[in-house]
Each structure stands twice: as structure tokens, then as C-alpha cells.
């Protein structure tokens, strides 16, 4: 097939954009250690003395979990379109280690690094791990399931207990807050207001720009955003743990089963 003819034909329908402007000298530094080709690893640790040893999970219709079992996670993805064409390029995980909150982040600087990222992440999961997320049951977990399937790696998340904080937050604050997004919960319950936060919707573009040879500035901001997300997750769980003491059995029954964002 003649390439120019094809371009022209495609152009009749889509009117392709102009060629990209040539790259100027840009910032290409990215944080972390390269633990496999194209795979970066970041680890930080935060002091947090008052975290409970055993978490009461009755707010999520579960029993309880030991602090060491908890794995708070959040992904940054290439978009919201869904299906096999959307991937996670960054996974952030927070867990409790010796009274400190350890945050580990993995991200890809090449597409080929996806398999090693998934394998590394899978290595962090144990049979008794309890997952904690915000909307992860219907978004992050199915998306990772798709990626594991495509990479032909057994999905380590299958069968794990998963606490999705979105649903208990909704049950409790639906009538109270303007919405139940994570940053709303963060603001009301944790009094955290983010500054210079890169909105989650900007993440796909930030990563793509870097992948295509552009600046790393916004990718660094995505990592900061992801870090804050998993830190807030752990704090929100501590908060929800406290509800049991506040109001035993006062929360009305709700629907625990989540519906997927896009059914297929």
C-alpha cells in the first residue's frame, strides 16, 4: 500500500493534526532507581506512630485485618477509555512497616517495561494481603486484571479481600458532601488540601509526552500525586476504622457490589 495515498485517505476523514514541533532541549531527569530496563522504583517512608495494630473493617462489611496485611494501592493510567487499550504506567503501594508507612512506586519509562512492572508488583502480594483502594474494585483491579492477562501472568489479586473505600464513604457521606471523590474525602476528613497537584486527568498526557521524548517535569508531578493518593488512602482507612467506635451498627445497609464503569 502506498503510504502517501493512505495518509491522504486517512486525512479525508480525520484531517490529521500538523506534524509535532521539533523537540527543544528539555528536562529528561526522572526520579528513582532503574531496577529493570525501563522500570523505575521509588521508595519512601513516613513516620506515623498512632496507627492501630488491628483494623476494624466492619464499616466495609468485613471483620478485621492486621496492620501488616494491608496494601493500599493506586494506579496511574493512560486514560479512561477502558478495554484492552488502556494500561497502567505507574503503580503506587503503601504498607505499614515498623510503625512507619512505606510507600513504594513503580513506573515505566518504556512500554516494554510493563511485564517487569507487573511481575515486580505481583511479587509484593501475599495470599493474606488485604487490598485497600479508592474505587479500585471497579477501576484499578479490573484494569490490572486485563494487563496481567495480556502479559500472560497469573493475576495475584484474584481472591484477595479488597476494601474499596469509595462505597463506605458514599454510604456515609452521600447526603453530606458535594461528591464522594477521594480528594473531597481527603479535604473533609483529613484536612488535606493539595497544592500544585497535577490533576489525575492530566496524567496520561504527562506520561505520553515523556515517552515521546518530551519533558519529564509533569511525570515527576504525577509521581507526587500518586504518592499523595496512597498516603491519603492509608489515612482514610485509619479514619474509617474509627467509625466503628463512633457509631456501632448505625450505618444503613447499602449495596456492596460495585458496577463496572464500562461493561463489556
Amino acid at each position, binding site marked *: *500500500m*502506498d*503510504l502517501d*495515498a*493512505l*495518509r491522504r*485517505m*486517512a486525512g*479525508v*476523514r*480525520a484531517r*490529521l*493534526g500538523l506534524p509535532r514541533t521539533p523537540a527543544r532541549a528539555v528536562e529528561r531527569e526522572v526520579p528513582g532507581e532503574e531496577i529493570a530496563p525501563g522500570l523505575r522504583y521509588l521508595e519512601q517512608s513516613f513516620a506515623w506512630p498512632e496507627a492501630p495494630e488491628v483494623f476494624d473493617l466492619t464499616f466495609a462489611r468485613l471483620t478485621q485485618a492486621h496492620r501488616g496485611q494491608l496494601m493500599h494501592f493506586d494506579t496511574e493510567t*493512560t*486514560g*479512561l*477509555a*477502558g*478495554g*484492552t*487499550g*488502556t494500561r497502567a504506567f505507574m503503580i503506587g503501594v503503601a504498607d505499614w512497616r515498623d510503625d512507619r508507612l512505606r510507600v513504594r512506586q513503580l513506573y515505566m519509562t*518504556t*512500554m*516494554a517495561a510493563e511485564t517487569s512492572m507487573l511481575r515486580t508488583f505481583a511479587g509484593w502480594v501475599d495470599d493474606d494481603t488485604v487490598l485497600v483502594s479508592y474505587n479500585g474494585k471497579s477501576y484499578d483491579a*479490573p484494569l490490572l*486484571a*486485563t494487563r496481567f*492477562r*495480556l502479559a500472560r501472568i497469573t493475576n495475584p489479586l484474584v481472591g484477595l479481600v479488597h476494601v474499596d473505600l469509595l462505597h463506605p464513604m458514599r454510604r456515609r457521606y452521600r447526603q453530606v458532601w458535594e461528591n464522594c471523590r477521594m480528594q473531597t474525602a481527603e479535604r473533609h476528613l483529613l484536612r488535606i488540601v493539595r497544592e500544585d497537584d497535577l490533576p489525575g486527568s492530566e496524567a*496520561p498526557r504527562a506520561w*505520553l509526552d515523556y*515517552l*515521546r521524548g518530551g519533558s519529564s517535569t509533569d511525570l515527576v508531578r504525577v509521581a507526587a500525586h500518586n504518592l499523595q493518593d496512597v498516603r491519603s488512602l492509608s489515612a482514610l482507612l485509619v479514619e474509617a476504622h474509627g467509625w466503628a467506635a463512633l457509631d456501632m451498627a448505625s450505618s444503613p445497609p447499602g449495596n456492596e457490589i460495585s*458496577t*463496572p464503569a*464500562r*461493561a*463489556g
Partner: protein
Amino acid sequence: MAAYLKALRSTESDAALATHHDGQTLAQRLSAKYGDRVCSAFTVFGREGRFAPLPEDLPEGLATALRARGIEQLYSHQQEAWDAARAGRHVLVATPTASGKTLCYTLPVIASALESGARALYLFPTKALAQDQVAELLEINRAGDLGVKAFTFDGDTPGEARQAIRLHGDVVVSNPDMLHQAILPHHTKWAQFFESLRYIVIDEIHTYRGVFGSHLANVLRRLKRICAFYGVRPQFVLCSATIGNAVEHAQALIEDEVFAVTQSGAPSGDKHVLLWNPPVVNPDLGLRASARSQTNLIARVAIKAKMKTLVFAQSRLMVEVLTKYLKDVFDHDTRKPPRIRAYRGGYLPTERREVEREMRAGNVDGIVSTSALELGVDIGSLDAVVLNGYPGSIAATWQRFGRAGRRQQPSLGVLVASSAPLDQYLMRHPAFLTEASPEHARIQPDQPLILLDHIRCAAFELPFVDGDRFGPDDAGAYLQVLAESEVLHREGDRWEWIADSYPANAVSLRSVADGNFVVVDRTEGRQTIIAEVDYSAAALTLYEGAIHMVQSVPYQVEKLNWDGRKAYCTRTRVDYYTDAIDYTKLKELECFDGTRAGEGSARHGEVHVVRRVSGYKKIRYYTHENIGYGPVSLPDQELHTTAVWWQLPQTVLDEVFRSRQHALDGFLGAAYALHVAAVVAVMAEPRDLQKAVGSGDGGWSAQVDTAGRGQLRAADGGLASPDMLERFLPTVYLYDNFPGGVGLSEPLFVRARELVRSALETVRGCECKAGCPACVGPVLAADEHRQETPRALTVKVLELLGAEG
């Protein structure tokens, strides 16, 4: 039956016809009484059934289920299909309507589900057929207590049911659009299903032709790619109605060899076919009675002779009109269940299901339908089929006739000609119908723009690696273009999807726009939805003032909310129905390239096609007099697409033709001949590539009128004479009937010279005298003796366009 009811029956019926007749005697009686109207009568002889015992390797439970449903043996073609499927072959079953094609795939599918837990995917062109199929599977399942789970999976399947279907469905019955938009792009959710997928069944493959077929072939390429990812290589079982090239078409769709089963073992009675031309009612003007009145007559006679009768009409409107006429005869007692029912697209699904059920149960004596009943909807067997007008293809004619004939009884099929030139031509030359082979189904899956769409979707589903093929060719150039448009990212030898979009949503397999209109009945404060009308038909049937009929009950449209896709109507009692007046015109937007073509030019580029409904006629029932007009103001139906076109300068035309009318007739003939040549050249379906004749500047458009002459419409939609025009620049257009174009017309421009030459060869070499459907389009009997025949005028135009160069 109570005595008074019997009495009622006999007064209602023609005494002579009160006894049960079969197709043969009725054909003879009709021929004897109306000899002058029967242009041709012939018999398609039936055949004895050929049977085979139930196969020995049929699982016991399945055999029990069949016996419980009264099936003690198979037809020979069912056994052939069983053997081939069990031997691991792809199978094509191309046997007539109602020959029991379903069992050809049901048996191997259920057998492998029982034996090894294998799964199957069924694809049907419509949701209705898919639902029928699941009902059928569930009945077999129940009869044998087999535990095989079958589900439909379509746009109506609720979200919460989808997960269960993916995990537990042994047979998933869906359609190509769902496969394309919902299953393949989410294949990881279907992983278990794919891992044990053994059979892919595609029924009614003759409907997948032209652009739709080309799309399906590419969806199947994607499906095979995904099957390979899950390590399976499923077998295809395909079914087709009778077309000229079923085997070739099946192989083109799946790009693999098929084992063909073409000899039906099902018994059938003789079929008596009449070609019926309405009588001349005005010899001076050559006017014939309407096809509608004749169809009505024949159907009435057949129903009175206690024959279950199916009438096919060409439009939804005609379905309602004919239903009303038959109901006036047979259903005037409203306390009794209706004997006459209408069936067409646009009814609510529940209503269609109910009509189907009633028909299967034998409670309906007459059905009036559109092409909706051409496909395999199960309505039981019938004794007579009457076609109100030629359906437009030989294949469809036989498919419709195939609806009649149960057991070994003789059946009747009547084709009633309309006044359209093509119908009248058939009446004069019946061999055109009886001797020509049915039409071929053509697809062109490697058409670049279609390939580009599907490679885009395929790359979303699984990444491409350098050297990967898609279809016969390397996908490299396409991947390159997709990377340049930033939907793919190349890294090493891999091409990965990177955009935040869901490409399958931007690719529609069918040309029809979505957005159905609902018709809401507001009579006496009601708010009831009584019908749905698809977008393409809305402008023609739901304008304010239109009489919209449902089971021949008239409603008047009072308000049309175009953007909200709603039409509000109330029940009315009027003695007329309405018919829209519409026309199409083209305007050139941009010329990409041009070249000399003989004395004129050939060009290709973008055009703007406008279809406008300018008003409507009120037509009184029975007399069919025109009792008034009404204005319509609706948004134009617009289409931006690509086209190829030919023009000749005015000076040349003035020199060569006696009058502008002659030139115009020549152009209309040339458009017909070029269209025929082009459809063959690019393997298109006629409906995908449209033809038009109009002014180069979009000022006027022309059509062949009922008198067989070119008729001009001015820009405002009024009729005009070519001699009144200041500039006369007739142009032949061939355009892609798809928004944005699908790339049919570009290759036509490249081959413009060859096309004109091949069109001229066809016209010159044709054995007809003045013109016929095989060359310049059907001509009227009167034109066969004209001095300058349409054919001669067409030859002149084609010669001027450089056919000799």
C-alpha cells in the same frame, strides 16, 4: 364450530373457494380466469426427502432431546454437515429457506458442549434472529435436560448479566456489531470463553455483502487474532440463503477453505409460480391497474381458499395499506382474534414476538410483511406467497418464494409487477428471472480505509509486532500511519496502543445512522410508545401531518421533535394515507484530482449529498386519487462523502444531441451503465455506491420518471424543463453512500477510462433492442420503438466520454 359462525364464514367467502385448495389448483384457476394477466407460469418441481438415521456418535442426551421433539432422523444435508463438523472442517450450509439449516450447527455445537465443555459463539445479523435462536436452543435443552446454557448478548443485555454470560455461557448468541464493539475490545474479560471456544456459527451470511461484509471479514480477522492469543483455532459453520456464489462468499469471509453442503435433503412440494402483470386499464395512455389492487385480489382469493398466505410489500407504508385492505375483508368482526397481521421493522419487539407466535401457532391466515421476513424468522409454514412488486434481486425473489411450501403440498408463488420499468421489463422477458443465476455477494475486505479502521481496532486489542499480517498483507504501512496520527506508539519492533480512546466506537459496521425515533400516542391523554422508526426512515414517515399506521390503525403525527427523536400522534379516522415527496441532489465541495475524459472530464473529490423531503401527498384509500398536498419542513438529510464524476461541456452536447432532453436521457443511461460497471470493478454492493445525475453546480438534479424519461428538479425542488436552464451541465456522479466515504470512489477515478470503456462494451454488446436492466436500465415498452432509444443515447454519451480513446 357453532352453526352461526359457519354460516358467517360461508357468506364471507366466495362459495367456489370455500374448500381448501392447494397451490396447483389455485394457480390453474387463476391462470384460467385471468389468462391475460399471467405473463408466465411455471413450476419448480419439488423433491423427495432424503434421510439419514441419527448419527451413532450423537451424545445420548441430545438424541433423546431430538426424539422428544419428534425428530427421529436427519435430512441428508444435516448429516453431511454433522460429519464434516465432527471431522474438524469449516462448513458452509447453503440450502433453501426452511430446510432445517439450524440443526446443521446446533447438533455439533451441543454435542461438543456436552462432551468436552466446549463453547460456541453465534452471530446473527439481527437481534430478533438471535432471540429466536436462543429460544430454540433452550427448547432442545429442556427436552433432553442437557444443562447447556445459551444466552443472547446484545446491546439490551443488562450489565449485571454480562459477567455471568461470559463465565457460564456455553453458547453465546450475538451479532457482528457487539462482537466488534463490546467483545473483542474487552477480550480479556472473555478469556475463559475464548480458551474453550470451539465453534463460531454465522448464519445468513448472504446479508454480509458490500461494505457490511467487508467489515465483517475484518472483524473475523480480529477474532482469529484473539483466538490465536488464547491458543484456540475454532471451526466456522456458516449458513447462507441461495445466492450465486455462496461457497466463494463464505471463503472470502473467513479466508479459509470450507466444506460445502448444498444439496438439501428436506422434502418439498412443487411450487407453482405466476408472473402477474396488472391489466391495462387505459389503453390510450398504456396505464395498468396498480400492483396493490392485484396483490390484494390474489391474497384475498388465496386466503379464501384456506391457504396460509404471506404478502411481501416493498415499503412499510405499503405493508400497512395492504393490511388494511385485507383486514377490511377478513377482520371486520373486531371481537374475533385477527386473521390478518402485519409484520415489519419499526414495531415494538414485543409486538413482533407476539405476531411470530401467532403465526407459528397457525392462528393467522394472512401476513403482510416487508423484507423483515426474508430472513430465517420462524413463522411456521405457508401455502402461498405474493410479492407486491419485484424485490430488486433474483436471490431475494427466490428467498421470498421459499417461504411457501409445507410438507409435500404444492404451493403458490405470485410476483405482481408494479409499473416500475424494471418490473415491466421482467414481465416482457421472464427469462431474466428464471434463467439468470442469483446475484453474487461481493466483499472487498482489503479496501484501504476499512483496513485502516480495523487495524486500528486490532491494535487496541493486541499489539502488533513488525512483520505481522492483517489479512493477506503486512500491516506495516497502516501501523506507520496510525503511529503518525498518534494512536500507536512504536517501541523496538512493537506497535502499542497509546491513545485514550476506544476505536471500535468510532467504526460502525453498518451505514445506518443510529438514534431511533419513538412514536408516542397521545390520544386522550395517553403517553404510550406505539412504534420505533429508524433514523433513515424518520423524515419519510414521521413529518407533521403524516398518517402513521400500526397494524393498519391510523395515527396522525401532530408534532415531531427532531432533536429529541420523538413523534407525537393521536388516533385518527381518515380515509387517506400520506406519502412523502423526496429528492436527492449533489454539490461538489472540493475536487482532489481531475483528468480529461474524451470531450469532457472525469474528476474525484468531496461532495455534499442532500436528501430533502419537500412535502407529502394525501392519497385516498381504494380510489388512490390524490386529494391534497401538505408542506414538510424538516432538516435536510446530509451526507459528506467522496465521489467520482464525469461531465461534458454544453457546446459538445448541443452539437451532438437533438435536444437537451435527449442528452439528459443519455446521461441517465450512462449513469446506470457506469454504476453497473463500477459495482463489479470494486466489488461493491449497489446500495453502498450510489449513482446520481445532476448539474455540476448543484443547481438541479435528475431522475428517471415513471414514463421512463429524465425529469429535472430545480434547486427549490420544483419540476423544471432542461430547456429553461441558463446553463446545462449534466454530470454523472458515483458516490460512497457512507459519511466521509469509504474509499470506493478513489479507485474508480484511477480506473475511469477503463470503466467508461467497459460500460460502453456492455451497452453495445447487449442483446436487447432499446435498453434493458442489464445495460442502461429498464425501458418502457413504448421506448422499444423510439427512434433514438435510451440505449443509443447512452452510447453517444459514453463515446463522448472517451470510451474510444
